[in-house]
């Protein structure tokens, strides 16, 4: 398929996943803020969230009221929910021919809704409906992607985007915990788990008390929870091998090599060794690896060999726009 189309599908899917993730974060924070033992007043958790999303400075410069409105509606910050949906829709518009009518209609309707006055009104009057609408959209989008289009190369690039974005989001949620400054409270841990829809799944695995050790273990290393970092990287690795046709464990390009090595890292290390070497730094390294995987997918499948070394402004510009 066309390289640009593959790239566009990949980003469309990432942006949808991102919109869902950020919405979930805001929803959980809003909800937890109601609890009497929440760190009220200082917004500690909100701040470390903004920090882990690399959005702290932008937030301070932004005119939006409060971090929730900023994360949802900021027109300045690229990763706000509204901007993610706008980007997803923009990408979808470029590859309409690859999508089913149903996928397009869902995404387009949400786009028109978010860009109308009704969006802010609904958020102000009934925020839970607002959150549900966006999260439901993302789930419908994934369902339709699985049920209404060919599971061909394009679909694999969409899955690739989804898994990379999930790994990235989960790593940021974990990072939020390490950025809190002191030991995370029980509520903070619950927030983190719920931000990844992982609370009940975690309960099933660890019946006992909530500890930072177990939460980090779960979000990083769970074999079978679909938002754990390990699970997501395995998804990335599997899709890459499906695309190239090269068996897993081998590699035929840089993207596969990097994804394989990231997978090996989460497969063959454990939470204790990570805590020993510093959780924050380990997560940082992991995020860097994920970014490199993303970059090498672009270099492998979108650029032609002679373009990678050259400093041709077009692809670089394009990447900046996208990220």
């Amino acid at each position, binding site marked *: 398929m066309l390289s640009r189309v593959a790239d566009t599908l990949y980003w469309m899917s990432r942006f949808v996943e991102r919109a869902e993730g950020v919405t979930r974060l805001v929803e959980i924070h809003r909800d937890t803020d109601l609890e009497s033992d929440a760190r009220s007043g200082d917004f500690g958790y909100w701040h470390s969230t903004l920090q882990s999303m690399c959005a702290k400075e932008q937030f301070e410069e932004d005119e939006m009221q409060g971090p929730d409105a900023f994360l949802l509606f900021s027109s300045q910050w690229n990763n706000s929910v509204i901007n993610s949906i706008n980007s997803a829709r923009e990408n979808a518009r470029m590859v309409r*021919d690859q999508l089913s009518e149903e996928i*397009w209609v869902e995404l387009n309707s949400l786009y028109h809704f978010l860009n109308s006055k009704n969006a802010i009104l609904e958020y102000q009057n009934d925020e839970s409906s607002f959150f549900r609408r966006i999260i439901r959209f993302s789930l419908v989008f994934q369902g339709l992607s699985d049920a209404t289009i060919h599971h061909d190369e394009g679909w694999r690039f969409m899955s690739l985007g989804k898994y990379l974005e999930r790994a990235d989001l989960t790593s940021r949620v974990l990072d939020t915990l390490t950025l809190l400054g002191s030991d995370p409270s029980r509520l903070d841990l619950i927030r983190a788990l719920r931000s990844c829809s992982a609370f009940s799944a975690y309960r099933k695995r660890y019946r006992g008390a909530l500890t930072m050790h177990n939460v980090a273990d779960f979000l990083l290393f769970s074999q079978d929870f679909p938002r754990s970092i390990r699970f997501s990287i395995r998804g990335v690795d599997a899709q890459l091998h499906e695309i190239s046709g090269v068996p897993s464990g081998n590699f035929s390009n840089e993207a596969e090599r990097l994804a394989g090595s990231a997978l090996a890292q989460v497969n063959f290390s454990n939470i204790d060794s990570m805590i020993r070497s510093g959780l924050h730094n380990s997560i940082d390294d992991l995020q860097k690896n994920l970014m490199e995987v993303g970059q090498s997918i672009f270099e492998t499948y979108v650029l032609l060999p002679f373009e990678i070394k050259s400093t041709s402004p077009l692809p670089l510009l394009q990447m900046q726009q996208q990220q």
Partner: protein
Amino acid sequence: MPLNRFSSYETDGFFDEMFGLGDGSEPLDHYHRLVSRIAKLDGERMEAKQRQAASSFLEHGITFTVYGDDKGSERIFPFDLIPRVIPLTEWQLVEQGLSQRIIALNLFLNDVYHGAKIIKDGIIPREVVESSPHFRREMIGFDVPRDIYIHICGSDLIRDENGKYLVLEDNARCPSGVSYLLENRQIMKKAFPLTYRDMSVRPVEAYPELLLKTLEFLSPRQSGKPVCVLLTPGVYNSAYFEHTYLARQMGIEIVEGRDLITTDGFVYMRTTHGLVQVDVIYRRMDDEFLDPTFFNKDSLLGVSGLMDSYLRGNVSLANGIGTGVSDDKVTYAYVPEMIRYYLDQEPILDQVPTYLCWKEEDCKFVLENLPDLVVKPANESGGYGMLVGSASTQKQRMEFAQRIRASPRDYIAQPIVALSRHPTFCEGGIEGRHVDLRPFILYGEDVEIVPGGLTRVALEKGSLVVNSSQGGGSKDTWVLKD
């Protein structure tokens, strides 16, 4: 027959598609069934159907982009629920006339790029051809695949005060609008399923297939399945919806300039599995933007080396390069002569008398009669830059007179034709609005025209300008089976 919805309908002395030359009390035979259906609908039902149609267009993203308007620049093309109906015999005449015309236009292009006999024989002056901004010297002596230049043509037809069909202009570069024709039909089938079935309307849905056949016919590689692509200027182009729509319907790739690359005179597209050779490009951008090494150096849209590959015959383009000389509005005036010259036939379809401002006596006449004429730039599209004399101010006419004197070659003038009207759903009920018709003609192995075309309607009361960029809308067009 009690015609509730039409009881106060006035034809105001115009030829009316539904009522002919009558006063609006008795519809023409081929409209009977439709009228009885619509007459029965109460205002609310009609409005509900209209709203449904509009939201369906928006939801499906069937929109066009208005340039120079940065917020909310995506709009739907307003759609009117009352279809235009054309009886078969009437359509057959139009069809023959359009086939004759596209064949003559192609012979003309082949001639002007191969020795220009028509000029030597004094039918059309050399200046007219060579001063056209779309005349491409590079094409002289080059044999285009299958000798066809215009593969896709959109000719605009109007009907005068007596209901006679006239050709108003030909669009032989990148005609657009066919996706609306196809989508309008989908919407109408949902809005009036029984009426649609009972009236035996000829289907239009084969267009994408016919278009693909037309493209494949051009492939320089005859073995295997030709690789055809649709080249779009990109997502911000006003017709982008149409580009993706057609590509999807044909099952071909929609590419931008940056997806293509040329090496050793061949064109390739970049795919995730490397480079794939391209045979035919259905390009939806003008000549000037196709190849920055050849035409406009600042164009970021095109593909470097594309013209070289084209001139080597390694890739085919639809439409060909240089077709713009045939849809120049000055050339238009000579089309009836071309038909006689190349085909030895009388033109089946008449056209609007045209004054050419580059001719001294015409220019004099035009300047003296501006209030009674329509003045058009010879090479614009989208209804931009024209003057409708009867609706103009003294100041506007002065300005136009100045422009005409400064560059007479760039202007033509025509008498104001009282375009036919069609009952249209308006705020105050059903009223007559002026319409035209754009059929889409495909020229490959055969000439193929899907029945009907895009009926465009000037939604503003009294307006004669039907272009989407100027407040026009559209209607479905029903050609009947018998």
